[in-house]
């Protein structure tokens, strides 16, 4: 039996559309909370199995930069982990969007803001996705660390999770450009559940 859950083209299309909607909700939430208009960039949504995750990260993360990595556990039928990765420069831009003065931009305050934005993006995106496929989920408190290279990324992900949905985002506020990657890692049972749910959605078309 194949250990890796693959999605076929129709399923991927369906997932892409669901993620567009989920992500639209998340962006709207952010702009409402900060009170500024955000441009919803078409999220590039990649759906890969975790064996290809490290490769993807190697391409994405430039070794020179430092990145903040936030993870949040999800429980329920879509159990797994959401991970948000953002580079240092984007973090500073983000802090400014949250109206932080220059003196207030200490590492702790920036970490705080990143945790907040991750919580919003992660909980609304996953929450909406869950609602669209008619299921419920709950969240744990997010954690943040700083990494210098892909090597520091926890390799247990490839064992524990079978599937990754990667939403590469660009949050564009009027002045600032903020790049971040939201990765939705699902456990094997969740991937199976997701696949089934996508097929039900496709059948209803």
């Amino acid at each position, binding site marked *: 039996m194949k250990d890796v859950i693959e999605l076929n083209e129709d399923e991927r299309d369906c997932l892409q559309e669901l993620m567009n909607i989920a992500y639209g909700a998340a962006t709207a939430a952010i702009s409402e909370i900060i009170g500024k208009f955000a441009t919803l960039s078409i999220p590039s949504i990649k759906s890969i199995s975790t064996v290809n995750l490290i490769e993807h990260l190697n391409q994405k993360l430039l070794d020179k930069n430092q990145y903040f990595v936030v993870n949040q556990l999800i429980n329920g039928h879509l159990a797994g982990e959401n991970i948000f990765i953002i580079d240092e420069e984007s973090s500073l831009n983000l802090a400014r969007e949250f109206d932080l003065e220059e003196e207030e931009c200490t590492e702790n305050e920036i970490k705080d803001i990143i945790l907040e934005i991750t*919580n919003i993006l992660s*909980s609304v995106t996953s929450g909406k996705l869950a609602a669209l496929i008619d299921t419920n989920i709950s969240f744990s408190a*997010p954690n943040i660390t700083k990494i210098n290279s892909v090597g520091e990324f926890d390799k247990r992900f490839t064992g524990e999770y079978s599937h990754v949905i990667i939403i590469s985002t660009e949050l564009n506020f009027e002045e600032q450009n903020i790049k971040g990657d939201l990765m939705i890692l699902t456990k094997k049972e969740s991937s199976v559940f997701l696949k089934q749910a996508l097929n039900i959605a496709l059948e209803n078309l």
Partner: protein
Amino acid sequence: MTINSNLIFNTVNNGIIILDENLNVLAWNKWLEISTKVKEKEIIGKNLCEYFSYINEKKLKRKAKTVLVTNNPSFLSLSTNNFLLDIPVSNVTNKVFESMQQDITILPYDLEKNHICIYIYDNTQMCEVNKKLEKLNDELIDMSHRDPLTQIFNRRYFAEQSEKIKSYSQRNNNIPFSLITLDIDKFKNINDTYGHMVGDDVIIKVAHIIEEEVRNSDVVARFGGEEFVMLLQDCNLENAYKVAEKARLSIQESCVITHKNKEVKFTVSLGVAQFDESDNNNIENTLSRADAALYKAKDGGRNQTVVSN
């Protein structure tokens, strides 16, 4: 079965606050009354941040807005202080924190009226354990770098640091750095005459003296029985020689007192070498040259410093 929520509200071992979006208090449970000594009837209708002025109002209001917009929980990550409400820790023994460390969850309570709910959970014990673990971990790492007898660094740490210092020098226009190898003269005699305890005292004394002679950026390590090495950053041969001589003289002036009140004197021999191209980018070679110089010092009568050319 209908749940007696009032009972649960006032017996649960967590703080529960219900607030409106402007952070005015609408409910305040018994746990909070007891922990903060503020009664519910005192604080109802008042703004939480006016009552507890240290709370970051801007941030908390934003969190409130977030949970009402997203209809999902939010977590207060407490960067500066690890609490929302400052509640002094009551125990006297084993106190690590002055204030209760708290885990905070914020939830939407009533979306129509824009009310939110805050749960406060006492996380102090776990934070204490974590802090102790961190400290132990740091100590472990430090121990692995130290010589047990003298408490100065050991050979292993020296190896790590010398590579770093070499890289630093190469990245910065080859700032010179030097090595001094040092050996206690006729150490075997000292041990045989006065016993191992005195021998140990001599080693400790020498270690402390040479530590005094160097700067914070330098490394002093015990290499083995009575052998020491000093790594001097940003230091050329001439200056290294001066340091070596100063150490030698201090050691010559010092002594160790035995338990029979006898004064034991001792001296050291030293070899000095500066890292240069002839070492082929390998500090081991510099070390060998310093050792060769040290040997000449021993051969030449001891209690002297020889420089490698």
